[in-house]
């Protein structure tokens, strides 16, 4: 009987922890469904793969590019729509996308701290408008 | 009580010792986090001396690990019964030493997060790949052997038959770990100091001196602190092994020195010059290398005279000398000496930094911790068996019921997941 108070206190604590996402005041309810504010390239409509694929699997593509470009010397990527791109994170991806306003925002939002790309790769200073995919040879 | 339970039931002295070791380990871990954050630049290593204390310690402790074969081989191949009580000590020493080796390699990596690449991209033409195989294989072999043998001993049943071939396999495997480790160095075309066929034999000779010397010291410490007696005959036999190995090791060093010094090829001589006489005004390692030689010779004199070798006061001194001498030779001079002078004739001084020492001490502490816990388990099992045997001799029926009852009560069937 004297222990009931402890049990109830423990249960209350458990309830607080389990329901944390529901009462957490970190974000007002109206903002909850808002996606991070991703700045998309202005003068470029197409990506190297369909958006749905890129959203879910860009890391796989990057890893494959990395192996092929660095290790096998195959630097040209024929996209799904027949366009040809350079297999380059710096030149192709960052030629259109901005690291801080695109990559980082989404990664921070989703809590994916992982990629160590930026330990080495840089955001190029090249003009976004100047980059356009080469057409098929 | 069961085997692993014995590790967590000990005297105040035992726990204080473990706590002290844990503190040293924690300090080492903090230093490692610092190194991980800043990079290997926190060590004394440089572009020219690109391996230092970590790799040197790795090399030395591979030798200590390999030396277990010096008790396993006489006992299992030559049926030398006196080693029956200490084979398990040798095997536990091997396990602790191999774990230390792995840790030394790990802390030496610039990108430890990618260490699994060695397994993901196996490269059979790289000796480091084979070193990984031989070290991990040796670890697995010894873990299996000690687990099976100690369990059989505790349960007072004969060990399963399949363990014998495993033990026999561990003998050549022990030789292989140090041979492959020597091949890491002796196959490099640009490093004249290591480019010698005698490196692997020399490694083995020094290992068979330093490892058994350490084992003798452990036996003497255990005799002091616990009731465990390895047996005078076993210790004396180990001392003989240390003696022979020391002689062979010194012989190998002299052979090597002769070839280099009499041959007088400048590229070969320079390394010895740097270590023993100093090069380009750099005498950094000279006193240590001569200390190593002096300790080695002193130990040899002590060991050669049978009366001194068996003397309870001089034997530990000789063993400490052997260990220190070889630690300086292999754990310091061998690696640094290979890098100085550099291919471009540069003499770069290497001084381990405080974080580097702290990490090294942390790994030593882990090794000491493991060996303490392992020996505690092994000796407690023996102690219990001894007590049991004593009781059973005096009052057999009561003793048996007495001993059995609590165990049966505590046998429970756990179903929880």
């Amino acid at each position, binding site marked *: 009987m004297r222990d009931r108070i402890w049990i109830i206190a423990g249960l209350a604590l458990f309830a607080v922890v389990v329901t944390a996402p529901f009462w957490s005041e970190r974000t007002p309810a109206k903002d909850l469904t808002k996606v991070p504010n991703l700045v998309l390239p202005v003068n470029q409509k197409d990506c190297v793969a369909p958006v749905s694929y890129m959203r879910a699997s860009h890391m796989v593509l990057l890893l494959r590019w*990395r192996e092929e470009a*660095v*290790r*096998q*010397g*195959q*630097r040209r990527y024929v996209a799904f729509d027949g366009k040809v791109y350079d297999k380059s994170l*710096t*030149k192709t991806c960052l030629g259109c996308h901005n690291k801080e306003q695109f990559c980082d925002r989404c990664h921070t939002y989703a809590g994916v701290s992982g990629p*160590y790309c930026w*330990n*080495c*790769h*840089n*955001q*190029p*200073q*090249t003009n976004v408008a100047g980059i356009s995919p080469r057409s098929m040879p | 009580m069961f085997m692993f339970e014995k590790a967590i039931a000990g005297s105040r002295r035992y726990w204080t010792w473990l706590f002290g070791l844990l503190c040293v380990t924690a300090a080492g871990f903090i230093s490692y986090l610092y190194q991980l954050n*800043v*990079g*290997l*630049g926190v060590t004394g*290593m*440089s*572009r*020219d001396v*690109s*391996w230092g204390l970590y790799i040197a310690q790795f090399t030395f402790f591979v030798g200590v690990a390999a030396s277990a074969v010096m008790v396993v081989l006489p006992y299992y191949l030559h049926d030398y019964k006196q080693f029956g009580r200490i084979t398990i000590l040798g095997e536990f020493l091997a396990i602790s030493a191999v774990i230390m080796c792995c840790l030394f*390699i790990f802390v*030496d*990596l*610039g*990108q*430890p997060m*990618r*260490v699994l*690449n*060695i397994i993901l*991209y196996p*490269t059979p*033409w*790289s*000796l*480091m*790949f084979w070193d*990984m195989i031989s070290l991990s294989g040796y670890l697995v072999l010894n873990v299996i052997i000690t687990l099976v043998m100690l369990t059989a001993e505790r349960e007072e049943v004969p060990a399963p038959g399949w363990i014998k071939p495993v033990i026999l396999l561990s003998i050549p495997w022990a030789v292989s770990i140090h041979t492959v480790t020597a091949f*890491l*160095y002796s196959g*490099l*075309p*640009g*490093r004249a100091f290591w480019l010698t066929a005698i490196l692997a034999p020399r490694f083995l000779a020094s290992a068979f001196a330093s490892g058994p010397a350490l084992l003798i010291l452990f036996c003497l410490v255990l005799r002091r602190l616990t009731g465990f007696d390895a047996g005078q005959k076993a210790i004396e036999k180990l001392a003989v092994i240390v003696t022979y190995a020391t002689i062979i090791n010194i012989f190998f060093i002299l052979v090597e020195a002769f070839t280099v010094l009499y041959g007088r090829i*400048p590229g070969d001589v320079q390394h010895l010059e740097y270590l023993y006489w100093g090069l380009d005004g750099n005498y950094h390692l000279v006193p240590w290398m001569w200390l190593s030689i002096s300790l080695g010779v002193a130990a040899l004199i002590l060991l050669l005279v049978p009366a001194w070798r068996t003397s309870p006061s001089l034997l530990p001194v000789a063993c400490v000398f052997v260990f220190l001498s070889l630690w300086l030779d292999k754990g310091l001079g061998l690696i640094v000496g*290979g*890098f100085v002078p*550099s*291919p*471009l*004739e540069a003499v*770069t001084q290497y001084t381990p930094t405080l974080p580097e020492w702290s990490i090294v001490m942390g790994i030593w502490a882990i090794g000491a911790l493991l060996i303490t816990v392992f020996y505690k388990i092994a000796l407690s099992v023996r102690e219990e068996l001894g007590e049991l045997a004593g009781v059973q001799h005096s009052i057999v029926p009561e003793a048996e019921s007495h001993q059995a009852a609590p165990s049966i009560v505590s046998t429970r069937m756990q179903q929880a997941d």
Partner: protein
Amino acid sequence: MKITRKDFLRLSGLSFLAAGTLEAARAVAGSDSSAQNSPGKPSAQPVRWGMVVDVQKCRKDQGCDACIGACNSAHNVPHLADPKHEVKWIWTEPFENVFPFEQSEYAQQTDAGIPIPLMCNHCASPPCVHVCPTQATWKRDDGIVMMDWHRCIGCRYCMAACPYGSRSFNWVDPRPAIAHINPDFPTRTKGVVEKCNFCEERLAQGLRPACVEACPEKALVFGNLADPNSEPRQLLRKRFAVQREPELGTGPSIYYLV
């Protein structure tokens, strides 16, 4: 018509064979066109990139470090104050340190003290490649000893193996030590080994290495050693050249005209 089991097996076997042959043909054709980074035209003939360093020409312009500067800025090579942590792709050392056994007591020491440009030798049989446990460094078909900084675990075995001291390790994060980061080329992360890559990224675009283009004296001559008519080969036919430590059998691709 009835297809028996035997017929079926024979047919399917044939079709498998046909598919296999096609696949093989495609593979052979593919390997020809890929990985050959000859500037200008893709060629079927073997490529082995190499360089001839005309020490005479270089010597004339003492104090010039155009090649080093060009390389460093092209590849984000950091300038670290601590000599122990230095990262070097192309640098110079005095002649007597580079060729210690070319010196003799009584001969005229014309070359003593002359700075010799050094870089990775891109050996025909590279010891660094033999020892690397992860294949983070490997030799390409065109002779370039490449590094994959994504895969390097930082064990520094290659540094111990290299008889030329051509490899550097990133003891600390190099980025703060780079004055102007060239965004088109990655920097390195701390804890990986790096070295001269013969400007393979420029070769892929049909350009010559940065150091070669930067040299005002044209002392660095780059070309295909496998091609008897290439510029370096013509030079090597005409003049006496040495390699660094050829007795080790590594087969350096860098020749020095002394």
